[in-house]
């Protein structure tokens, strides 16, 4: 069985809600049924085959070709299978996904991996604000799984992060790890202002020393035993995080945010 492939024929001016095109919705659907499925495009509803040419039958392996930054909600609530996006993706990529994996060749918009519960999300380009965050008004962001970004991320990475890991090979914007409840964010590049703002618990693992706010206390340099175990777990990733030379266990530890609960930590490679 070949992968179920959606190739974008035209780039609509309005944003498209791609949430119906996930593995569990397309499971056991006939090709004609998939072609006739409705998609919201701005204020209109269009058929899938008006926007995409469709080939292949394996609904557990979806490929979206010629994708661009107005295709929102790709992989929303994904429960199994894999989605590969060739090109950019819009906002809310992998929103609330519960399993499976999503791989994006290009860049993504806001709220990628927001409130995801489990699974694997890989973004090979850059991503927007609120990566793995919570939707406005909600109190919990990502609750499990792993997000890997090979480019840069925007502001508020892991806002309200509850559990799981966010790995970023590039840089992040401001307020990285803001309001974190728990979980782990690792950033190889630089971070913006207000790192760990109002974080309650959790770990920010940084390769470069950030501007540490006054509400974080320096706890000194330490060799931490859990870091080699964590790096060992990254060995299967297609990422710089998997390279043995990347691993370290000696860090400068800052505890905070003491303006909040104060049980979080910023660990900076020493």
């Amino acid at each position: 069985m070949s992968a179920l492939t959606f190739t974008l024929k035209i780039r609509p001016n309005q944003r498209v809600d791609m949430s119906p095109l996930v593995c569990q919705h397309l499971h056991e659907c006939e090709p004609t049924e998939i072609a006739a499925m409705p998609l919201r495009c701005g204020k209109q509803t269009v058929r899938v085959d008006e926007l995409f040419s469709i080939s292949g039958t394996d609904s557990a392996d979806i490929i979206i070709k010629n994708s661009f930054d107005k295709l929102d909600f790709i992989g929303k609530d994904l429960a199994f299978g894999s989605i590969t996006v060739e090109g950019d993706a819009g906002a809310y990529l992998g929103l609330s996904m519960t399993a499976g994996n999503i791989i994006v060749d290009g860049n993504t918009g806001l709220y990628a991996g927001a409130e995801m519960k489990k699974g694997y999300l890989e973004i090979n380009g850059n991503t927007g604000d609120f990566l793995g965050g919570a939707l406005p008004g909600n109190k919990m962001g990502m609750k499990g799984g792993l997000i890997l970004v090979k480019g840069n991320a925007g502001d508020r990475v892991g806002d309200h992060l509850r559990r799981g890991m966010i790995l970023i090979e590039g840089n992040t914007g401001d307020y990285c790890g803001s309001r974190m409840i728990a979980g782990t964010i690792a950033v190889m590049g630089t971070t913006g202002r207000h790192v760990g703002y109002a974080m309650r618990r959790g770990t920010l693992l940084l390769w470069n020393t950030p501007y540490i706010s006054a509400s974080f206390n320096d706890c000194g340099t330490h060799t931490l035993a859990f870091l080699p175990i964590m790096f060992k777990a990254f060995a299967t990733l297609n990422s710089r995080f998997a390279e043995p030379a990347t691993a370290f266990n000696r860090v400068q530890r800052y505890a905070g945010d003491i303006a909040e609960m104060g049980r979080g930590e910023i660990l900076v490679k020493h």
Partner: protein
Amino acid sequence: MIINGVSIDATFAEAFPMKATRAIITAQNEKWAFIAAQAMTGFATSVIACGCEAGIERCLSPAETPDGRPGVAVLIFAMGGKGLAKQLETRAGQCVLTSPTSALFAGIESDIKIPLGKNLRYFGDGFQIAKVIDQTSLNPNLAKSSSTTKRYWRIPVMDGEFLTEATTGQVEAIGGGNFLVLATSQPQALAACEAAIEAMRKVPNVIMPFPGGVVRSGSKVGSKYKALNASTNDAFCPTLKGMTHTDLSADIESVMEIVIDGLTKTDIDLAMRVGIEAVCALGEQHGIKRISAGNYGGKLGPFHFHLQEIMA
């Protein structure tokens, strides 16, 4: 059956079902991993009064441990799951948590989980930190199981941080495999047992829980004293040869026992075979006369280890 002049009795060792777990202790070097493991498995020779039977299974190279440091694998056996969990937790808390540079990990997978560091975390007084490493997210091809999703606790302690896995597995096991070495003198009996223990320590999944692996005070069920449920095995006591219904011939002056706990019957079979072979290799010329085994008539324990079948 006679091997190298040593008579193998047509009898069997009688063993019982137990619950077991394995923990891996690592430290800055093997010396300190071993010290922690020795402390954790101390006073654990017999369930009769120790609550569990425990021992060091083997030393682990850095490549074999979760954190890449030298380590030691320990096995703990108890009569029930509750007792095992209690012994594991108290021993981990008092002996491993306290030991410098140590870390503690699960050493066996099972659907039944018992706490390892799950409750020790409260020693952190609120400063403890959990880290969940979910391999199923890192590698979607993996099936979700206890071995792919692990929770660790980081407990701040005075020498740095005590890292421990939250739980370990509990498995069905067998305790009480044994054989007796009957010799013409005490030094010869001990030398033969030392040779057996050295060989048996290379067998995986077993421990010999008594001091140095050897018991000099094998017991029988019951006693003339109502308060005791076990007493000296007078049939094998050489000083009572003329006083009791003895099992010893006139030339036997000393008897020592090796008790084996193992994860499966096959493991104990192998350990007994390796041990008896080592004893028999010394042979009659070193004063070894007979190999026998302890049993209760076959009515109490469901596992029977027939010596002659094992050595066949």
